[in-house]
């Protein structure tokens, strides 16, 4: 842990010793849960500890986690974007439409990213310029973006993609390490630095804690929120490219319901749904937990509805536990 404060000071800035802060942290508890799930899964199914199987299982969360990183920042700043799954649908439709005309893969990627950023900009403008609540705006654009896909596609599908596009969702960088997993790791590092090591990240947290206070401290609140919506649109577009590549087809129902799974990852990762606090490490561990739970249950052929119940219970206990913890330990953060 080299990132600790090195300046000499006689007054400790925390009352509890460092080891205590670490083991009482949310991320540490998540890590314990993740390890527990890993062990239980290993015992429950003989197929779990197979490198290729585990590699396949990462597809259960990589695309959603890519969006979750940007969503985490957005939620920390006190906003939310429920249109992310619909952005996936629109981006995928745009790529599929372009692919019909024999557009090259780099151009398809650029088109996808551009559409995603435009969607994010649209959300961001409505929220920051018009001052509308983001939950209302993005419920609206959730219908709007997917609606456009339905108009373009109807009950048809785009299925003719260039073969090289398959690399994003089906390619391997090295051995069992997929391209998507590599992208996930890279995004985790980028967002870790952005949130925890830059003044931008600090501003995001401050806005989430006290938006008015942030404004009076000279932070351009609207601009930062607008950038966060752009970022969410961009990450949704990247996820859309991966998913389209993995499926090799686009239907308007693509990624239906993913916005809730993305928010689940973020909240499970310890990000305060009301804004103001959260870490990228938490989001990373939460992604692995959800991925392992769905894969482990899948191996045991547990019906999907039981999985949903389990994830629901996990989420409720995740939100309830810190409050119970605070009540009994008599401390507050």
């Amino acid at each position, binding site marked *: 842990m080299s990132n600790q404060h090195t300046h000499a000071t006689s007054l400790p800035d925390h009352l509890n010793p460092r080891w205590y802060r670490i083991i009482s942290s949310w991320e540490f508890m998540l890590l314990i849960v993740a390890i527990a799930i890993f062990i239980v899964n290993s015992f429950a199914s*003989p197929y779990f500890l197979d490198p290729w*199987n585990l590699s396949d299982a990462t*597809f*259960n969360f990589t695309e959603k986690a890519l969006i979750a990183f940007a969503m985490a920042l957005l939620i920390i700043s006190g906003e939310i974007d429920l249109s992310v799954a619909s952005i996936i649908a629109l981006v995928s439709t745009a790529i599929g439409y372009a692919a019909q005309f024999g557009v090259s893969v780099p151009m398809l990627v650029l088109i996808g990213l551009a559409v995603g950023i435009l969607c994010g900009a649209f959300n961001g403008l409505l929220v920051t310029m018009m001052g509308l609540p983001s939950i209302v705006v993005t419920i609206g654009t959730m219908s709007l973006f997917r609606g456009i896909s339905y108009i373009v596609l109807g009950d048809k*599908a785009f299925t003719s993609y260039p073969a090289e596009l398959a690399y994003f969702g089906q390619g391997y960088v090295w051995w069992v390490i997929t391209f998507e997993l590599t992208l996930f790791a890279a995004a985790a590092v980028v967002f870790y630095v952005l949130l925890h090591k830059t003044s931008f990240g600090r501003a995001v947290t401050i806005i989430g804690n006290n938006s008015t206070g942030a404004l009076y401290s000279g932070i351009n609140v609207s601009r930062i929120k607008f950038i966060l919506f752009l970022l969410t649109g961009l990450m949704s577009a990247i996820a859309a490219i991966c*998913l389209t590549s*993995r499926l*090799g087809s686009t*239907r308007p129902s693509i990624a239906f319901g993913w916005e809730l799974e993305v928010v689940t990852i973020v909240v499970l990762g310890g990000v305060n749904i009301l804004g103001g606090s959260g870490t990228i490490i938490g989001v990373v561990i939460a992604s692995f937990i959800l991925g392992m739970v769905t894969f482990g249950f899948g191996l045991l052929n547990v*019906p999907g509805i039981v999985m949903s119940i389990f994830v629901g219970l996990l989420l409720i206990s995740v939100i309830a536990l810190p409050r119970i913890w605070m009540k009994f330990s008599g401390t507050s953060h």
Partner: protein
Amino acid sequence: MKLLRKLLVATAVAAVMTTPAQAESKRIALVVKALGIGFFEAAAKGGEEAASEIGDVELIYTGPTDTTAEGQIEVINSLIAQKVDAIAVSANDQDALVPALKKAMQRGIKVISWDSGVAKDGRMLHLNPSSNPLIGNMIVKLAADHLPDGGDVAVLSASATATNQNIWIEEMNKVKDQYNGINVVATVYGDDLADKSYREAEGLMKSHPELKAIIAPTSVGIVAAAQAVSDAGKAGEINVTGLGLPSEMAGHIESGASKSFAIWNPIDLGYSAVMLANSLIEGAEAGPGAEIEMGRMGALTLDDNNEGAMADPFVYDASNINDFKDIF
């Protein structure tokens, strides 16, 4: 660090202890569009029947919670991980499942699709519940069965551009002369809307007073026509038949507005899918012209697309409607 090492050792030991617990039996996965749908629960019943008939087969009935391709891919990935022997899938998306199913086949898993098909590259064969000629023949036969001396019949279809219905009616017209005295007097279109179908059925009764039967090869049209016949007090006089769902038609069978109708039998479909999967595991080769065994349902003959039709649509009437009306 120490803790971590202990955990790793523990998991490694666990892995070694659990791996040899391999079952001897063949495992066949019946993957459906979504769990909790009556039609597929019935198919699973048929699958279980096939599994117990074969003996050493363990049936895995599974599917996502909602009808998405992504959900089905997660299910298929976990089945590949479990190294099942065969996957029989009713697909939510004929194209999106192809990469996942190709991977399954590369790893030695037999893959077939049933009910709702997968593109040719993603499966070894596809089982259609029935075929267009069989359906075309069945709908006119249903009317003729109750008209030994022939009579006027009319067709109430979906929309004029509905591909399936048009093909079935065309097939029906090819064979209708084999049925004694059956005279098709009109074809009208209810656009698969309940109220429009109802009005079209009323119109048929007015303009053709001698009408003896209405054939509606659509589940919306058949219900609306049966209702119109009942409301006109002509139940028992005009027989409404065609393709419908037992749950929606039970009341009209009871009232006599419809003597019988047809639709594929999901139990037979699930049974046949599992039987076909087992035949492939046992070494049957799928290819154009091949005949693949499917137990009590006979054999499936594959066409150039490696597709085959299971059987005639199954006929539902007063004798069996109660067994099926709660299923789908």
